[in-house]
C-alpha cells in the first residue's frame, strides 16, 4: 500500500493517531459473509421439505385413483401420506366417484407451496391447487364434471408420525385467480 493510500484509509477510519493502534478488534464469531444454517433452521428446512413431499405425493395418488375410477377404502399410498380429517375427506370424494361409476381425466396443478409455520413434528403449508383441468366422466362417456369452484388455496397441517409426514387437517378457500396469493409466486 502506498503512503497516500494508507493516509486515505486512516482518514476513512478516523483512527489514525500518533499512538499505537490497539488491537482490540472483536474476536471472530463466525466466518465472514457465509450464511450458516443453525440446527433449528436445518430442522425446519428438512421438515418443510418432507411435509411438502408427502403432500405432493398424496395429490398424485389422489389423481391416480380418481382417474382409475375412485376407491372405497384408503390405499397404502393414501394412508402413508395422509391421516385424520384430510384422509376422510379424500376417501369421501374418491368413494363417491367409485359409487357413481365415474372415472377422471387430468392432473391437479400445484402452482406453489408456501411455508406458513413450523413447530416440532408439525408444519403448516399453503398450497395453490388448480383443478380446472380435471374432468369426470360416467360409464357412457358423458362429461359429468360437477359445476363449482375448481381452484383452491388450501391451508394444510402436516404432521410427523414416526418417520412419516402426513397431511392431517385442512381448510380451503376458492379463488377465481391465484394472482396475489402467497402460494402462487
Amino acid at each position, binding site marked *: 500500500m502506498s503512503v*497516500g493510500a494508507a493516509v486515505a484509509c486512516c482518514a476513512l477510519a*478516523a483512527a489514525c493517531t500518533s499512538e499505537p493502534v490497539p488491537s482490540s478488534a472483536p474476536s471472530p464469531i*463466525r466466518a465472514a459473509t457465509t450464511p450458516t444454517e443453525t440446527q433449528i433452521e436445518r430442522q425446519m428446512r428438512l421438515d418443510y421439505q418432507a411435509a411438502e413431499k408427502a403432500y405432493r405425493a398424496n395429490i398424485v395418488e389422489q389423481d391416480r385413483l380418481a382417474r382409475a375410477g375412485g376407491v372405497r377404502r384408503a390405499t397404502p399410498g393414501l394412508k402413508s401420506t395422509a391421516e385424520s380429517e384430510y384422509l376422510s375427506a379424500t376417501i369421501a370424494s374418491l368413494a363417491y366417484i367409485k359409487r357413481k361409476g365415474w372415472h377422471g381425466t387430468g392432473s391437479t396443478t400445484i402452482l406453489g407451496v408456501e411455508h406458513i409455520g413450523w413447530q416440532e413434528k408439525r408444519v403448516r403449508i399453503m398450497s395453490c391447487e388448480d383443478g380446472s383441468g380435471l374432468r369426470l366422466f360416467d360409464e357412457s362417456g358423458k362429461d359429468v364434471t360437477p359445476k*363449482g369452484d375448481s381452484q383452491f388455496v388450501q391451508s394444510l397441517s402436516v404432521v410427523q408420525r414416526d418417520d412419516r409426514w402426513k397431511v392431517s387437517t385442512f381448510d380451503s378457500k376458492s379463488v377465481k385467480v391465484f394472482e396475489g396469493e402467497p402460494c402462487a409466486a
Partner: protein
Amino acid sequence: MRGVIVAIMCGVAINVAVAAPAAADDGARCNRWTRWCKVTSHARGADRDAGVTNRSPSPTQKPSRRYAGNDRVRDARKKFSAAMIAYDRRLARYNRCVLSFNPSANPAGCGNMPTAPNPPQFRTDRFARPGSQPVTAGQAAAIAVARLQLPTIAPGIGPAPDVNPWKMAAVGYPLWLWADGPTHVGPISDSVAGLSVSLDAEVSSLTFRMGDGHTVTCAGSGTPWATAVQPGTKSPSCGYSYAKPSLPSDAYTVAAIAHWAVTWTSNGQSGVINVPAVDTTELPVGELQVLVR
C-alpha cells in the same frame, strides 16, 4: 353433484338436499375432483357420507340447548379459524415483501405487519377439558408473536461515512455490517385465550441489500465496527466492499433485513416463528484518488 344424501346425525336420519356445490369460503374444506365444499361449522359427528355440502338441521328439528351452545362455540372457532387463515395469507404476503425488499424497486416499503385476529372469548370452564381450548398452542403463539414489539434493527455500517473528511464510504474499502439495535428479546410471557405463551426472540441472520445490486447474507447479527479497529481490517463476521461508486450522482440505499427467530413454548408444545424486519439507510460511496509523490 345433485342428489340426496342421507346423513345420520344425533341418531336422527336427516335428508339433506344438495342443490349445488357450495362456494368455498374460509372455514370450508373443498375437493377439486368432486368440487365439494364442506362447511365445517355445522358438521356434527363422524363423516358418514360423502358430498355433504352443508349439514344443517332440518327445518322441523329443533336444536337442543346443548347443541345450540356447542354451535356457538363451533361458530366462534370457525370464524377465528377463518380469520387466522386470512391472517396467515396477509402475513405470508408481508413476509415475502420484506424478504425480497429492494429499495430501488419498492421505495414505498412493505407497510405495517398485519394485525393478528382476536381469539374467541368464552367462559374458560367450557374449555376445561384437555385439548378443548378455544385456540391451539400454535395459534396462541402466532398471536403472541404478532403482539410482540420487536425493536427496530437499523443497518449498521462501519466505518460510518461521517467519520472521514469526505463524508462517504470508499470503493474497495472493507465495510463492517451489523444489526444496529437490540438483537435479543426475551424470554417474555404472554397469555392468549387462557393459554400461556413464552417467547424468546433472537436475530438469527441478516441480509443486506447493498444498493448496488449485491446482497450479503450473514449468520448472526454481525460485529459492530469500533474506532479501535485497525484501518482496512475486514469484519470477522459480516462485511462488504463496494466495487463501484454511487457518487457523484447519488447515494446507495442499503436495506438491512433482520431475520428474527422467535422460539415459542405453550401448553407443552414449542416451535419457531420467523419474523423478518427491514430498515434502510443512505450510504454515499465514492472513489479516493491517491496521489503518490
